[in-house]
């Protein structure tokens, strides 16, 4: 449809009477890193979850890599996508969670192999090789046979990033990937994310790490109360916020 990697138009989402997203637009070009910032409860996680259809929308459209997410349009009528095709869409979208959500009954290596072998139908040997390479890339090859409970938060999050990368995603979604970490562990995860960005991965990152946003982000989006209040380059928004709500929030976190 366009050359955007991710495009969201007028996304609305309610839980019962509570309207959490009230018309969100977003455009992410291939290879770009967009940082999404906003106060707690502003709908950031919900928006990310809409992007890979973990939540269904009340209104709006989302395209990832040119495909309409979750639906198909035939003769002007919207149809819910069959599960098989929705799964193929999700496989192209990597997701990293605040609380890691590694599979606790599997070792680091098995966690990373899970996607390739279950979803891509890769052979055991190939999946193991791929998983080994990815763990190496996030600096976790010496811990590949540890269970998640035996890893620090930062190590778990790096394994979780490797697990998402194992599906060769076109875009990576990060939901506050460092908020559950002790301060001294934040750097190792941000380091891996910086490397990813430098390799040209398209990324949507919900974060409170303004240093990361300034250094790595191409775009900066400030959300509050289910709407995008302000957007621009990180330098512009962080340096001279145009909106009073943005300024008030940034003065608290900076």
């Amino acid at each position, binding site marked *: 449809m366009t050359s955007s990697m991710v495009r969201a138009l007028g996304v609305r989402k309610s839980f019962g009477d509570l309207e959490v997203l009230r018309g969100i637009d977003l455009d992410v070009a291939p290879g770009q890193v967009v940082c999404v910032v906003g106060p707690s409860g502003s709908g950031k996680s919900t928006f990310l979850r809409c992007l890979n259809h973990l939540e269904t929308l009340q209104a709006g459209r989302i395209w990832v890599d040119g495909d309409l997410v979750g639906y198909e349009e035939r003769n002007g009528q919207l149809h819910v996508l069959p599960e098989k095709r929705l799964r193929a869409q999700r496989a192209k979208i990597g997701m990293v969670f605040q609380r890691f*959500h590694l*599979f606790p009954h599997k070792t680091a290596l098995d966690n990373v192999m899970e996607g390739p072998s279950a979803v891509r139908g890769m052979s055991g040997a190939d999946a193991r090789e791929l998983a080994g390479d990815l763990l190496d890339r996030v600096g976790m090859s010496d811990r590949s046979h540890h269970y998640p409970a035996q890893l620090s938060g930062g190590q778990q999050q790096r394994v979780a990033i490797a697990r998402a990368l194992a599906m060769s995603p076109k875009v990576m979604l990060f939901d506050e990937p460092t908020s559950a970490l002790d301060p001294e562990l934040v750097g190792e995860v941000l380091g891996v994310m910086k490397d990813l960005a430098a390799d040209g991965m398209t990324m949507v990152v919900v974060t409170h790490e303004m240093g990361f946003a300034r250094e790595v982000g191409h775009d900066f989006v400030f959300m509050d109360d289910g709407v995008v209040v302000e957007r621009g380059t990180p330098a512009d928004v962080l340096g001279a916020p145009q909106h009073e709500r943005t300024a008030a929030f940034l003065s608290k976190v900076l």
Partner: protein
Amino acid sequence: MAQPDIASTVEDRPDLTIDATHPPRPGRWIGAGLTAFALFWLGWTIAVNPNLHWDVVVDYQFYPVILEGLWVTIQLTVISMVVGVALGITAALMQLSESRVMRFAAAAYLWFFRGTPLLVQLIFWFNIALIFTELSIGVPFGGPKLATWETNAIVTGFVAALLGLSINEGAYMSEIVRAGLQSVDPGQREAAQSLGMSRVQVMRRVVLPQAMRVIIPPTGNQFISMLKTTSLVSVIAGADLLTVTQRLYLENFEVIALLIVASIWYLVMTTLASIGQHFVEKHYGRGYGTSVPLRSRITRNLTIDRRKS
């Protein structure tokens, strides 16, 4: 002792290891003594009691009829548990289903089979021929029939026992499975979905293995319970261990000796099952580093019976 100076060097420090004596605890010693005495006395009266006929116990422990009953009990337990677990998983998934019809059907099943005594259910199944004299395969609502059997020929004591035990067990297992499925962090499901897994894969590869950790211990207890609950089928001529024991002592009047024979077999089976449970739990505890010592597992299972009936 006077408080030593903190600044003193390591060599200067007084010996600080703790090697303290305890104030006397006479209550504990008296309690232990009395208990030991009571146990010894109990053992002694049992050992020397002429009414217990230990020689008969020895004679009958491996008596062929007893062993046949033992085999029936094992079959009843294993088959009822396997069918019960399958029914339980099905009913649990129905309980968690988005379909109201499914949830209603599951709720009705649990309500009925947990709300009536197992003994009543067993007698009911045994007498099912009073309601349905024939069983047939064909088109429902009075349509043509392909094959017909007489109910009494199919629902023998053994089959009635299996029906009663497994359908009842399914209702209890359903609650255990549901609790297990719900114990898994919803984030696990989302992480699996976001990789592109299908519903079935999410369930089989991610949710169930984690739910098993919660499901296995009470299921083990159910299994051990079932070994003993099978004795209820003696009321419907189930040919299990207790039934054959009763038949024997009605002939030779060695009531107590034969009940001891049966009890020894029940203890052997429950103990073996406890040991098995230990290893299964260890398997599903991978990655969590928790484990109950084998010895306390055995005694715990033998003493606590959280069952119904």
